[in-house]
């Protein structure tokens, strides 16, 4: 069957509608700071400046059909460095949504379809019953094999819990033991939390596919789930775009959410400051060096530098001030790793790795042995480019290191640690 044709969007009209006055394409000085600072520049003969110019020149057909929109991760770095604050990502989003489903990268579409296919909203299609079963099974195992945690809890659908905790599907699907460190952290701080059988998943590739209806549907299910359990806080765990898609989705689709959205990173920092998470860096006697990756989705595109500072406070405490090396640039100015925007799922491996070269260079320049990041897409991408470009670093979640520091990290919870930390 022949693939569907891609209709032409009137980008200039769309820009006038979508972009605020004063930050419209009209204000572009053609200076090129956007392109200079964009890892997707040059791919498919395109870059942010060309995108703007072609929109203004009325090259709608070319822009409507360029595959570059799937290389742009909509990370908004171009807007961040633009003196006129011009935002290209909104038009990229529009162009993505305009592609017929059968032309969009199949991986992104499939992930979205799976998310809308069950009440879990899991992009890996894990149904509620399976999630509940996996959590119970893993919990049993921990209680049985780790005596310190024989009373560990992983509540599901507990009404009135303070935190409604989301969960990236990767763990319950592929590496269930990786869920345990977070449970242990909740246990240590005495958090009042629950998982849910419905709307528990974190991912939202519908947003990346430009499919607004599906994006809304996924967010709506999650909002309903939190409302139903009457939780105060929807707590986003170590996943970047889940936060952004939920936050923006609630605002965009005007959904009624009777709860706050908060990030686990902020809470790690608070629990450490309050003394509830008594972590320190004594375990790192060999002076292993760490760096952090600021996920675009929670730093530049959402909380700004405040959450980046929280993350650094957590990491510095965990690894020791002298063992922390910042990536350059960092915080809100950081580069997207190239795993975001659905790039990892898009099947454009060569492009994605080319994009990721800049991230690899950033990491290499730090000389760090590990990159810490509270984002699954960042995690997978940095892991992949590390191997592809011959890097020698590991990528770990914050929860792993917190439990390591507390001395409560189980033997099988160390898959992302190198031999020196496998214990």
């Amino acid at each position, binding site marked *: 069957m022949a693939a569907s044709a891609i209709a032409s969007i009137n980008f200039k009209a769309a820009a006038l509608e979508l972009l605020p006055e004063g930050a419209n394409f009209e204000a572009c000085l053609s*200076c*090129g*700071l956007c*392109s*200079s*600072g964009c890892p997707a*520049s*040059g791919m498919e003969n395109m870059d942010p400046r060309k995108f703007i110019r072609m929109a203004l020149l009325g090259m709608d057909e070319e822009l409507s059909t360029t595959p570059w929109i799937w290389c742009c991760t909509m990370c908004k770095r171009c807007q*961040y*460095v633009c*003196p006129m*604050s011009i935002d290209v990502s909104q038009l990229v989003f529009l162009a993505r949504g305009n592609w017929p489903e059968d032309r969009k990268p199949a991986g992104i579409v499939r992930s979205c379809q799976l998310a809308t296919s069950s009440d879990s909203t899991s992009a890996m299609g894990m149904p509620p019953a399976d999630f509940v079963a996996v959590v119970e099974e893993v919990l049993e195992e921990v209680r049985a094999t780790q005596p310190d945690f024989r009373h560990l809890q992983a509540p599901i659908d507990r009404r009135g819990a303070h935190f409604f905790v989301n969960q990236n599907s990767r763990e319950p699907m592929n590496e269930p033991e990786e869920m345990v460190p977070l449970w242990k952290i909740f246990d240590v701080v005495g958090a009042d939390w629950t998982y849910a059988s419905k709307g528990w998943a974190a991912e939202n590739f519908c947003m990346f596919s430009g499919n607004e209806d599906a994006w809304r549907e996924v967010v709506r299910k999650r909002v309903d789930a939190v409302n139903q359990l009457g939780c105060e806080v929807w707590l986003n765990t170590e996943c970047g775009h889940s936060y952004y898609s939920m*936050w923006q989705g*609630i*605002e965009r689709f005007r959904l009624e*959410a*009777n*709860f*706050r*959205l908060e990030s686990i990173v902020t809470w790690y920092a608070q629990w450490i400051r309050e003394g509830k998470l008594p972590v320190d860096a004594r375990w790192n006697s060999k002076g292993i060096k760490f760096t952090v990756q600021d996920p675009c989705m929670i730093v*530049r*595109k*959402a*909380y*700004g*530098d405040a959450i980046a*500072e929280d993350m650094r406070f957590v990491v510095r405490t965990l690894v020791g001030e002298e063992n922390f090396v*910042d990536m*350059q*640039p*960092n*915080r*809100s*100015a950081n580069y997207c790793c190239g795993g975001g925007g659905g790039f990892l799922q898009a099947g454009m491996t060569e492009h994605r790795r080319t994009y990721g*070269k*800049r991230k690899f*260079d*950033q990491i*290499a*320049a730090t000389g760090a042995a590990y990159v810490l990041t509270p984002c699954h897409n960042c995690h997978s991408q940095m892991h992949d480019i590390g191997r592809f470009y011959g890097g020698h670093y590991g990528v770990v979640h914050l929860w792993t290191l917190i439990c390591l520091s507390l001395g409560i990290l189980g033997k099988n919870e160390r898959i992302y640690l190198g031999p020196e930390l496998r214990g």
Partner: protein
Amino acid sequence: MRGSGTPRQFSTQLAVIGSGIAGFAASIFAVNRQIATAQVGNTGALAYTTGYLDLIGKRGGAVVVDPWQALASLRESEPKHPLSRLDAGDIRQAFTEFTDFLGACGLAYSAPGTGNLTALTPAGTLKQTLCMPATMTAGPRALAADAPCVIVDFKGLKGFSGAELVANLRQRWPQLTTQRIVFPGMERGEIYPEVMARALEVAATREQLAAALRAVAGTARLIGLPAILGMHRPDQVRAELERLTGREIFEIPTMPPSVPGIRLRELMQQVLPQKGVTLIPQQRVTALSFEGDGATLALCDAFGPIRVHAQAVILATGRFLSGGLEAHPAGIREHLLDLPVTQPADRADWYRARYTDPRGHPINSAGIEIDDSFRPLTGEGRRYHERLFAAGVILAHQDWIRGRSGAGIAIATAFKAVTEAERFLAGRQAMVPGAPPLQCH
């Protein structure tokens, strides 16, 4: 959604509006004086700076060799020029403090000297400047000595041509040659200085580039490169390349988007928060109001509204490029408070007939008026508010472009504004014992 839409509140002693050189300089001076500071505002033109810190490079179209002497004569002929209203000692101290701060943060600068330095431009012309990054100083020295030198440019890097430099410098620098090479790992398509600079932060790239440089350097004792010597550790990158090539290496600024400006922006954005400054970069202040006990700045970032409450405010919002001034068909306006702007009577007089007229355009001297304490004035010549100070190129009666004095005006007036704000704050503190320190809540 619960909790959304409520502005986040910050309280501080001093709020600096603007994130250009003037704004950052103000924050540096405030940090050095232990003044609790919040800095907000779009970076505007900072990313376009060359790295050269000019004080006075030209007067009346003529080259200025001794800016301090020029300052004295400026005082005579242009008493309203912002630099004329400052003490030469203060200007020198401002430059020293500013460059020392950058040096301490890992971006070494030459100290302000008794005369101007002759700096290279990417067109092969020369310009006079007071201070330059350490990565650029070897070029002018080599020019003065006619040392054997090769300018290396790169396939795919637009707007930087070794041939152009050689063609325009040949008379002054007979021993200058040029070579073109491929940047390691960037064989195809367009390449950007920013990307090259970041790649050079990696040891492996430095080694490959050094090998390529050695292959073309021949008998040259020095190698001149576009400004690409690293983004975060330029001095180390240069030292490393010098070690690997066995030659002295220097940078020449490039046209935008160029590395030295991005270097400064990233350095400031990282260092100032570490020094306790509440920095909210890349966001424009939408309103500034004064109440009995202070000033309130309103702005919005991606996350939502923010309010900053301050005891004193420095307005360093720049000109048209950074948004401090707005040119409307009906006249030029100051965008935040609608302060009166001194300007040509008629729009027809904004620009001269010839773009490159060495006398400059009358619009360039438009700006806001201040009193001797650098407080902006109302149309009636009164202080707008005792808590409000101004610094940078938003000030009237200067043409920083023709005078080659942009950084000088920014740094020196920021110094003055901070000094005056400090005096004001100290007065308030003396009157109100136990005034609140910096609070973030």
